[in-house]
């Protein structure tokens, strides 16, 4: 996602998650800006090492769940009590609240449904993943067993490439901004 395009980018490829994690910590400690890491699987501690802000998706999910809860309450009220009162099993149906226990399964399911679906769509929207979106992956090997790191180039290029090689990079390439 949106890294600044002012400086050229150096791409380095690694083949071990621990080496990547150590390299990120080392580079950031030396003042470099590691703008992105591509990995075939989540690396524990990488978010923190990259200094990423925590996602707000979980907060959104809570409110999506609330939306589902209110929607299902309204739905059961409208369909079962108000518009066409239905007496099932002799349960009190003059007030929504009295018949509420029988609606709990519906309320539970719709809460989960809303939280899960809206969270999924939010994730796609935020990440620009729509049908037909072009893959932003710079190297297909990062979906298998390699790790790619993008570092903003500041200062001498040779310093950074030497540093990356020392940290265990297998391949290094430069992308002009």
């Amino acid at each position: 996602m949106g890294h600044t395009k002012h400086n050229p980018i150096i791409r380095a490829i690694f083949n071990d998650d621990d080496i990547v994690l150590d390299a990120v910590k080392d580079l950031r400690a030396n003042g470099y800006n590691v703008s992105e890491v591509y990995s075939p699987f989540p690396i524990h501690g990488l978010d923190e090492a990259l200094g990423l802000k925590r996602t707000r998706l979980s907060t959104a999910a809570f409110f999506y769940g609330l939306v589902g809860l209110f929607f299902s309450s309204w739905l059961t009220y409208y369909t079962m009590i108000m518009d066409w009162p239905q007496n099932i099993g002799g349960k009190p149906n003059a007030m929504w609240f009295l018949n509420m226990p029988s609606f709990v399964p519906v309320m539970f399911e719709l809460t989960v449904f809303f939280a899960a679906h809206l969270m999924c769509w939010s994730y796609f929207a935020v990440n620009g993943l729509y049908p037909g979106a072009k893959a932003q992956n710079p190297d297909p090997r990062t979906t298998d067993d390699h790790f790619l790191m993008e570092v903003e180039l500041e200062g001498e290029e040779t310093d950074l490439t030497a540093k990356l090689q020392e940290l265990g990079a297998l391949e290094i390439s430069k992308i002009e901004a």
Partner: protein
Amino acid sequence: MFEFSSKAKQFAIALTLVGAILWLVGYALNGPSSSEGDHGSEAHATEMHEAAGHDSHAEDNHVDHSAHDDEAHGDYPGEAHAAMIEASMDDSHGGIHSDHDAHAEHEAHQIANRPWSALYVAAFFFLGLGLGQLFFLGLQYVAQVGWSAGILRIMEAQAFAIVIPLIAIAIIGLLGIGHVHHMFHWLLEGIDEVGHPNYDSLIADKTSYLNPVFFMIRIVIYMTGWIWAAKTLRKNSLLSDSGDGLAMWKKNRGVAAAFTVFYAVTSSTSAWDMIMSIDTHWFSTLFGWYTFSGMFVSSFAALILLTLYVKSKGLADWINENHLHDLGKFMFAFSVFWTYLWFSQFVLIWYANIPEEVTYYMQRFDEYKVPFFTMVSLNFIFPVLAVLSRPAKRVPGTLIMAAVFVLVGHYMDHYIMVMPGTVGDHYGFGLLELGAILFFAGLFIMVVFRSLASAPLLHKNHPMITESKYFQQ
């Protein structure tokens, strides 16, 4: 190494003694004239008797009510509800005790039951704190869990908390068999003798299972199996410190697997025996899981408090916010699981509305309304809101708050499981209940801290101890 300081020891002994004294004072004061105030047992019985007589008139109309409902008119919501109340009142206060003297005796029994019920609720609550962690400890070996290796010693210590409550439950069971109290309806004399005034044909059919001898045999089997598991898991864990960690871990995995199978059966049967048999006429097929889930979640709350206490002493710095996060997740997840079972049990009974089942809930709605609904919010809504978010599970403050909610809530849950069947509407929270809690709390601290102090807090040769130290999420 954890040290059971003399200050903590004195505190625990003081709790036990104060608890015992409060309970004894409560026991001496317990009676119709003191705790019930102006509600003399005789007067109360008369009043209730009249109410029961009135209800039997209402009972005749019951059929009409249901007929109305069947015609799908049911635009008056109170109808079904009222019918349920009548059914319940009839069962708990009329029915077999329609004779006035028998009714007064029943009331007197309920009042006399209160000290023992108070002791029983507290014993069962503290049994749960140990038993939940004993099962969780076994689970760590069976599921080959790595992250928890650094907390195992605290779980081991907490698992020993089952011993004293089990003894207390066995003693209260024996006293019931000796007719010192009448908590267990099926222990009444002549319950299965045709023609005896106490004869109850429904319970008579169950006496091949619910009889004093088999009951005590089962209690002894539970005690033996559970205490054996707690002791063996602990013994092998201590041996691993000086020997081959992997070999001892494998041995413990075998022990834990055997225990898990044993517990799968006994968790249900013990819940039937110790709790469900109090309401002898009533039965629920998921009662075992329901009881277990309550025990499990309260044991996590206790484990969190214990872990934070140990950490606050500057010990166990290998237990960090990642481990707390997982414990918090377990507490969160199982409070939801408990709610799920609670609601599943309730909604099926509410929906089916079969009198013999619904009486159980009607009594709780009528006579225990406030504790009943407080308990549900304490056990579900509060913990869910308190530890829903990730950061809340990683700091002591919110965890402690949620743990206290859960502990109080599950004490109330056990209270509501036991009390309606033993003391009816003569319930309350006074010297007896408080004394019983303090008594078992003091013993809990004594047992758990002693075994915590008897061994290093960290496994030396556990095969996954490194994984636990570097656990991150």
